[in-house]
Structure formats: structure tokens, C-alpha cells
């Protein structure tokens, strides 16, 4: 998931979606003089049980079969719970002992702070195993340790690990001492096996995110954009953690109406929750900022600026120290997308492609610009240059200028993730653009959009009535035709769902360039995009028509159209009607068990109104229909309105795109699979 940047790209799109949060972010819901103040309601107490659906063998007269349960309790300082079992078995504290007969047992944890807050799981008690492993099931924090014992009648035991879904299962020695991996592997469960000559037994270990998932001394590049009290805000930087809850250091470049500055990150703390939702307090030379980070893996996380004076969305990506050099970019093409505000404070977006000829010099560029509705296509004067002397191989930070006839010279700071990905923030006072460079193919043809291949995409921008967000899918035929597709649009709260007609086309325009001109035709509108492919299965998109006056986005080659199932991180970004159209950024962790329901928690920064640990209840997801499109509804109880109606587009088992389809908000987002 090093690339794993759909959410980062979504955050970039939010630049367009979000209108200014001007005089004070805390003045949410004050606009227009209707409501006088915002009220932060108290979230209800929530309880989650780990492991979630364990299976263990029956107890025997000599060998109890036990589960060490853990309960996460939210929104109260009293995190104690009372454990009960229905259907057999017993509890001693949080340790459950299975009955001596097979069957299902319902285990319930009841909050001692609020007896109405409960959670239940079903324990499947099965047949006795040849070797009894204890504990038979439990949850272990990522990077944590657990000692297992085996009742094997004195026989020699060989310990081993299996990650049923693949990935890193952790380590175990031959004394049964287990060390969990830094992040949950696919599926989230590791099987610990104790084998003897006469048979074997297993324990199931659920791996929970922990402070260790933000790996000690690992460089992480981050970027986010949003709004602060001075208006548009774009930030990029690098940060390291100690894997134990402390921030070690780093630096960031901030472009705000309050100034364009480089801040040193001098310390801070963070706390990772079991579902990957993390609060970080980051101390900088300019003050302390708060982040909500939702971990996807040890390499990739979603980031929301979580202060009352600033909000925004972005991502955190592990940097590869071995590739932090200007020369690692040599002889590669890069496609990029940048967006932000122009010199007059109106939205502007750029997308293009160029070639690194060496020494940080980029040539052979081509560029599309949508400057608040003034569109320039195929500007081939584009070039860029890295100031080699400015580059710091210890942090991946450097300076780059991007020059074209259309834009003039723009000055950026970039942070290198690796040779495939740079995060950029402009350090000019005006305009202010931010975005990403991604490695791109050397050349493209019509077959670069292969036959019978679906591409899912999302875009954000503005219509005359206000913010715009859209998501859709189209099917290429490999020869310049689009054979079908659909699109869901939220134009300032007005919702449209439209099918593409087969008169939709794409071409390499101008010829022999790395630019695709894509035309998506609906019954009443024609959408035109400049498209720049990356080598990572994605495409930068910039809207060039007058339907949506200004917009840009990211597309993905679809590799699966199956209805999502599993555990996902979530980022939504855009604007909310409840705060008079101010920016709203949401992170969350949700589970989709496969029975048309959704569960989990959201953390929301609604223009400075902070809401944490909002538990989803009554949320649903419908199966995919065509083109990988489906619908889902998130219901969180808060804020008001508490229902988020969404259309979703599946990219793969790892990524899902969403757009809100009601009049209450204009949000787009992504759901990267956690495990």
C-alpha cells in the first residue's frame, strides 16, 4: 500500500470542494445569521469486543479452553465493562472459559458507565483438538507479545504461524513466545499452531492496531489540504514516531493565508486505537496541531487535521530511505495533479505529464489548466526543475519550480515518498496549489485503456451554485471508444445519476503525447477531461468543459467489482450544509461483514466542530449492480443530519470510491481496505 494514495488524491480534490472557512472555523453554523452558535453534542458510549467472532474448542475436564477478551469503550472515562455469557461457559474477569459441549455462546460486554451501551459477539465452540493451545483465542496489539502454552501430553511441540489471508503473521519461538506484526495482516487474524507427532492444535489471534503500527524511526511523508481561519490551507512534511506513542521529529511546509512557513516538528504524542483510529498531538515550532490518523497499514494512513482552528484531509505514507535521491527520478515520466486557489482566491487545478531527463530537470511536458473556469489545454511549454542543492536525502525534502506559458513559474516544496511518488505544496503566496507527482508510463496508446476495462473515478470542483462532487465509472474498448458507464453527481446538493452513452470517446490528443482527451457523454451533458495515466493503475483527471465550471479528480483501473467486504478505513471530505457550507473532513474505520450492514466509528471535523467516536448504527450497504456501482447509507446518530447517503464505486478489493448523494453535504471520499 505504499502507493495507496487514493485518499490522498481525494484530499487534493477537497481543495475544490471546500469553500472558505474564513473568519473563524469555530463559527460553524453561524453563517447567514440564522443559528447563533454550534453545539457539540456528547457522543454516546460505545463498546466493541475483540476478538470479534472467535472459534475455540470445547473445554475438557483437565484442559480449559479459554479466550482472553478485550473491550474498547468509547466516550467515557470509565472504560470498565461487565462480561456475561449466554449459552454456556463462564467468565473470570475478561477471561472466558468455554463449556464442555459444542455450540454457540453469546458473549456480551456491558459498559459500567452506561448500562445501555453493550456489545455482543458469538463464540463458536467446536470439537476438541489433539493439542490444546492456550489461550485459544485472544486479541494482541500490533507489535505486542503473548506467550502460548500447549497441552500435548508431554510430547514435543513445534510452534508455527499462519496468516490465512497472507501477509506478515509476526514471529513465534519454540517456547510459544509470540510477537505480533506491526499491523494486522489481511483478514486481521493469525493462526498459532502447535504441532506434535500425534496431532496439532491452533489458537486464533486477532491483531489490533497499536502505537507500534506507526513504526519506530520510520520516515513518513504527509500532506493535507483544507481550511484554517485564514482560508485555504495546504501542508506537506515528514514526521517520525517512536512506535510507542511519542513523536520524534520532522518538519512541515505550511501555506496558509496566515503565512508561508517551514515549521520544525519537535515532538508530540499519539495514541492508536484498536481499529486504527489515532489521535496525534504534533508539536511544531509554530505551535501544536492535532491530527486524526486512521491507519490502513504500517505504510499508509489517512489524515484529518483535527483542530478547531483548522481542518483538512490528506495522507501519511512511509518513505523509502534508500530511494530518497534526486537521481532516483532519472529517466522516468511523471503524471501530476495540483489544485488549490488562484491569485484571486478562486479555485484552480492543473494536471500534466513530464519527463525527468536527469539531475532533476523535467522536460517534454504537457499541461492542462482549469483556472476558475478559464481552460488551457495541452500547453507543451511545461517544464520543471529540482534545485539539487536544496534536496535533503535525510528527509526527502526539496525545492522544485514548475514553469509554463500558462502558469508562469510556480515554486514548490516536495517530499519524496520514493521514486514513484512526490507530495508537493506550493510555497508562493499566490497562487496556492498542492498535489502529487506519480510515476507514469513512457508512452501511451489507445490500448493503454484496454478493451472491456472499467475505470472508476471521482472528481471534485465547483458549479455556479457551489461545491460539486462526482464519482463514476466508464468502460474502454481499447480503440478510442467508451462502451458504457455511469456517473453520480452532487452539484451543490442537487443529485444526478446518469448513464453514459456509447458516443463517449477518448483519443491521444495531441498525437504522440502522453495526454488522453476523454469525452463522457450523457443524455444531456458532455463531460470533457484531460487524462494523464500513472504507472500505478491510476489516472489524473482534469475537467475541461463548462458543465462543471472547475473540477479535477483521479481515476483507477478497476480490478474487481465485487461488493466490498472486510474492514475499511474511511475518509470523506467536502462541505456540509449544517455549517453553512463550510469544510467538513471525516475519518473513520468501518466494518462490512457481508450481510448488508455496516459498523464502526467516525471522527468528524465539521469546520472546527470536533466530533469523535461516533458509532455507526443502522448503516447499510447494497450490493454492486453494474460497473461496480452500489449504494450505502452511513448513520452515525450525530451530527445532524446524521445520515450520509452515498453512491460507491468499487476499484478493487483494496479501494472503494464514494460520493454523497443527498442535499445535506457535498462529500467525496475513499475507503481503503485495512484488512
Amino acid at each position, binding site marked *: 500500500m505504499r502507493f495507496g494514495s487514493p485518499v490522498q488524491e481525494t484530499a487534493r480534490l477537497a481543495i475544490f470542494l*471546500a*469553500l*472558505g*472557512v*474564513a*473568519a473563524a472555523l469555530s463559527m*460553524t453554523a*453561524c*453563517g*447567514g*445569521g*440564522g443559528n447563533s452558535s454550534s453545539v457539540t453534542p456528547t457522543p454516546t458510549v460505545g463498546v466493541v469486543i475483540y476478538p470479534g467472532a472467535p472459534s475455540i474448542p470445547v473445554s475438557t475436564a483437565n484442559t480449559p479452553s479459554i479466550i482472553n477478551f478485550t473491550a474498547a469503550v468509547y466516550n467515557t472515562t470509565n472504560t470498565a465493562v461487565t462480561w456475561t455469557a449466554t449459552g454456556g461457559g463462564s467468565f473470570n474477569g475478561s477471561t472466558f472459559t468455554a463449556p464442555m459441549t459444542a455450540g454457540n455462546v453469546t458473549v456480551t460486554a456491558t459498559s459500567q458507565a452506561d448500562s445501555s451501551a453493550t456489545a455482543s459477539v458469538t463464540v463458536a465452540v467446536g470439537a476438541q483438538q489433539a493439542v490444546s493451545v492456550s489461550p485459544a483465542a485472544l486479541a494482541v496489539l500490533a507489535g505486542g507479545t503473548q506467550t502460548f502454552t500447549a497441552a500435548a501430553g508431554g510430547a514435543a511441540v513445534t510452534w508455527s504461524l499462519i496468516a490465512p489471508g497472507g501477509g506478515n503473521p509476526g514471529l513465534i519461538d519454540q517456547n510459544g513466545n509470540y510477537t505480533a506484526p506491526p499491523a494486522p495482516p489481511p483478514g486481521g487474524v493469525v493462526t498459532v499452531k502447535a504441532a506434535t507427532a500425534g496431532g496439532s492444535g491452533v489458537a486464533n489471534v486477532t491483531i489490533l492496531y497499536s502505537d507500534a503500527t506507526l513504526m519506530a524511526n520510520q520516515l513518513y511523508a504527509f500532506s493535507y489540504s483544507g481550511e*484554517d481561519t*485564514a*482560508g*485555504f490551507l495546504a501542508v506537506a512534511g515528514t514526521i517520525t514516531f517512536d512506535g510507542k506513542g511519542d513523536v520524534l521529529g520532522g518538519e512541515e511546509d505550511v501555506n*496558509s*493565508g*496566515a*503565512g*508561508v*512557513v517551514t*515549521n520544525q516538528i519537535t515532538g508530540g504524542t499519539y495514541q492508536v486505537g484498536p481499529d486504527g483510529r489515532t489521535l496525534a498531538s504534533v508539536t511544531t515550532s509554530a505551535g501544536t496541531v492535532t491530527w486524526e490518523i486512521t491507519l490502513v497499514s504500517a505504510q499508509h494512513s489517512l489524515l484529518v487535521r483535527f483542530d478547531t*482552528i*483548522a481542518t483538512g484531509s490528506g495522507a501519511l505514507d512511509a518513505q523509502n530511505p534508500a530511494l530518497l535521491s534526486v537521481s532516483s527520478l532519472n529517466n522516468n515520466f511523471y503524471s501530476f495533479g495540483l489544485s488549490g486557489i488562484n*491569485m*484571486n*482566491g478562486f*479555485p484552480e487545478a492543473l494536471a500534466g505529464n513530464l519527463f525527468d531527463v536527469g539531475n532533476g530537470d523535467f522536460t517534454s511536458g504537457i499541461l492542462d489548466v482549469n483556472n*476558475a*473556469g478559464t481552460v488551457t489545454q495541452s500547453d507543451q511549454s511545461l517544464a520543471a526543475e529540482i534545485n539539487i542543492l536544496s534536496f535533503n536525502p535525510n528527509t526527502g525534502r526539496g525545492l522544485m519550480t514548475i514553469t509554463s506559458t500558462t502558469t508562469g513559474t510556480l515554486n514548490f516544496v516536495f517530499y519524496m515518498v520514493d521514486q514513484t511518488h512526490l507530495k508537493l505544496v506550493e*510555497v*508562493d*503566496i*499566490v497562487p496556492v496549489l498542492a498535489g502529487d507527482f506519480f510515476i507514469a508510463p513512457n508512452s501511451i496508446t489507445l490500448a493503454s485503456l484496454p478493451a472491456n476495462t472499467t475505470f472508476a473515478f471521482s472528481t471534485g470542483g*465547483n*458549479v*455556479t*451554485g*457551489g461545491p460539486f462532487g462526482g464519482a463514476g465509472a466508464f468502460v474502454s474498448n481499447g480503440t478510442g471508444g467508451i462502451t458504457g458507464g455511469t456517473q453520480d*453527481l452532487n452539484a*451543490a*446538493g*442537487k443529485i444526478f445519476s*446518469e448513464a453514459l452513452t456509447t458516443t463517449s470517446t477518448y483519443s491521444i490528443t495531441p498525437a504522440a503525447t502522453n495526454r488522453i482527451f476523454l469525452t463522457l457523454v450523457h*443524455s*444531456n*451533458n458532455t463531460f470533457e477531461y484531460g487524462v494523464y495515466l500513472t504507472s500505478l493503475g491510476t489516472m489524473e483527471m482534469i475537467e475541461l468543459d463548462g*458543465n*462543471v*465550471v*472547475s473540477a479535477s479528480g483521479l481515476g483507477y483501473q478497476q480490478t474487481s467489482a465485487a461488493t466490498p467486504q472486510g474492514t475499511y478505513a474511511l475518509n470523506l471530505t467536502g*462541505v456540509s450544509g449544517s455549517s*453553512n*457550507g463550510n469544510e467538513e473532513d471525516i475519518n473513520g474505520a468501518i466494518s462490512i461483514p457481508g450481510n448488508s450492514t455496516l459498523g464502526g466509528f467516525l471522527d468528524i471535523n465539521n*469546520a472546527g466542530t470536533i466530533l469523535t467516536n461516533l458509532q455507526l448504527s443502522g448503516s447499510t450497504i447494497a450490493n454492486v449492480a453494474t460497473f461496480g456501482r452500489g449504494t450505502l447509507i452511513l448513520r452515525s446518530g450525530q451530527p445532524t*443530519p446524521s445520515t450520509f447517503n452515498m453512491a460507491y464505486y468499487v476499484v478493487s478489493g483494496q479501494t472503494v470510491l464514494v460520493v454523497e448523494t*443527498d*442535499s445535506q453535504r*457535498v462529500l467525496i471520499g475513499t475507503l481503503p481496505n485495512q484488512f
Partner: protein
Amino acid sequence: MIRNLGLKSLLTFALAFGSLAALPAKAQTAASTATVAGPAALGPVYDITKEITIQGNILKVEAATGGSALLGTHVQIQTPEGVVDTHLGSGALAASQALGIYPGQSVKVTGMMATVDGNSVLLARVLTTPNHVFILRNEYGIPARSLLPRSNSSSANATKGGL
């Protein structure tokens, strides 16, 4: 960005946009209303040649939170011809506090009439209050999204703020 200008700057902006002085002084009839082109139109297409200028007193400032009205700040302006629902934009930059507007205040608005869900609304591009001129949309109708003016000086000269 909302340009927060004194009246001395009005002439400059009028020249820059080439239209204020030539705009009609009062609300026009429905003949100048831009209507949705078709069921799939994403919103009114802003046509600067159809701009009008109205002048009157603010009756009410409202925040539309969704539903049939355009999301964001609306002001009801009493003109000699009637009350005009005027959409200023969304976000805090279009809030009454940011613009310093209040009921009873005399204002002048240049924009384009549009029909949204059957209701006429003036999409405000330029709002003139007794003390300020605010550019709320550009010539394509795109709402502004940054409040504080940023100077054109070199970034090297900027050393304050940034958190």
C-alpha cells in the same frame, strides 16, 4: 477570495471587471433569468451578459442547510420591484459576520438571476455594502473560496503564521 475593499477601490474593480458602471441599476424582469437547460444540467450557467444590479435593504439573512435552496448564505433584499432572494455563496466567507451584513443595511448586488427548483434566485457576483465591495463569484460564476487577500510579494517575505 472575497476582496475586502474600501469604496476607494470600487472604481478600480469596476474597471477591472468592465461591467459595474454599465450594469442596470435595478432588477430586471424574468426575461433575463437563466433557466436550467435540461434535466441533467448541473446548475445555471453563469452568463455575465445577463447580469443585473439590484439595490435595496436587507430584510433577512438566512443559512440554507440543504434541501431545495442552494446551500449557503441567502439574503432577502427589499427592492422597489419586490423582494429578491440573493445567494451569496457558502462557507464562512459568505457568512454575515465575514461580510458585515445585517438586516436593514443598504446593499447593492450585481449578479445573474437563475431558477433553481422553480425558485428565482440572484447569484451574487459582486456585493457592495456601505463600506466594502466583495467579489463573491468570478465571471464564470465560480464562488470564491478564500477570504483573506494574499499579496503578490515573494514568499520569502512571508514569515508569520502558518500552523
